[in-house]
């Protein structure tokens, strides 16, 4: 009788790998469409480019039901707290794709009114360049995010999101303490982070 080798009979894998495989193939995108990149996003979701091929067809316009936020356009300083709140209200685990130069770095809007990159206020996973990027570029961004999800560990993602919630709690305490608006609070936190040479507030 042949001896049963456990390695031949049983396939082992890490929990992270299994869960991440599920996560990367069932992304629920939420468009944070504030400018022309949103038009490219519409094209990407519809029949010609069809993001459904990558398992992300269930687009939702509510943060409650989505876990991949696509920031499609210029985020002004006025909009920054809104972006943070929406990100906070998304279902976990969550990922962010910054689409286009405006979202990624402020782009051509090098003004006092525009947030110079959304990664200053919320954690961004993938940046898609272009002004606006073609639907293929955004799809490539989603594919890059899938690669990233495949490699990440579950606890890392959890800590990553927990750090954001810490910063949100800090924002709210500063806001209540100094009696500022949420915009002023984020500006204050950004200035403070800049002095420390960090560049992000989470």
């Amino acid at each position, binding site marked *: 009788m042949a001896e049963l080798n456990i390695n031949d009979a049983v396939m082992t894998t890490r929990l992270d790998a299994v869960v991440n495989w599920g996560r990367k193939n069932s992304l629920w995108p939420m468009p944070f469409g504030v400018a022309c990149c949103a038009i490219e996003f519409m094209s990407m979701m519809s029949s010609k480019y069809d993001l459904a091929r990558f398992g992300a067809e269930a687009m939702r316009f509510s943060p409650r039901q989505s876990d991949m936020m696509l920031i499609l356009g210029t985020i002004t300083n006025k909009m920054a707290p809104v972006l943070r709140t929406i990100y*906070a*209200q998304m279902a976990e685990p969550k990922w962010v794709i910054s689409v286009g130069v405006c979202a990624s770095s402020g782009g051509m809007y090098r003004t006092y009114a525009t947030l110079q990159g959304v990664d200053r206020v919320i954690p961004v996973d993938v940046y898609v360049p272009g002004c606006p990027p073609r639907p293929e570029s955004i799809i490539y961004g989603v594919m890059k995010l899938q690669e990233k999800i495949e490699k990440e560990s579950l606890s890392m993602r959890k800590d990553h999101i927990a750090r954001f*919630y810490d910063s949100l709690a800090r924002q709210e305490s500063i806001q209540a303490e100094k009696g500022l608006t*949420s915009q002023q609070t984020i500006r204050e936190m950004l200035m403070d982070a800049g002095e420390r040479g960090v560049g992000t507030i989470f």
Partner: protein
Amino acid sequence: MAHPASPFLSVLILMLVAAVTAAAILVLSGWVLPMLKPNNPQEAKLRVYECGVPPVQTGARHKYSVKFYLTAMLFILFDVEAAFLLPWAVNFKHALWTFGAMLSFMATLLVGFIYAWGKGAFEWER
């Protein structure tokens, strides 16, 4: 000799399978799967969703005036009255005796109208 209930054995099996499936779905979706999902309740996350801005009015579940329903009900009442008047008017010259009947019907509704008026049912907000 087979038991008289034996043709119904398959029905019994079907019922058991249905019960087990229903119970399994309940247990899985209500108890097992929620243990697997990430659970991180946060104050900001559970807050009312108002497109990212702080909610203007908290507590939408307050009581509100039912005046609208009252107005709509009164409208239907007098609408039916008008609809009733039309066929009566068409047949009027053939049945003159209905004049008194219609007059009393109108008078009854008029009393109701005056009562509703006096109660302030036609005021939108009081």
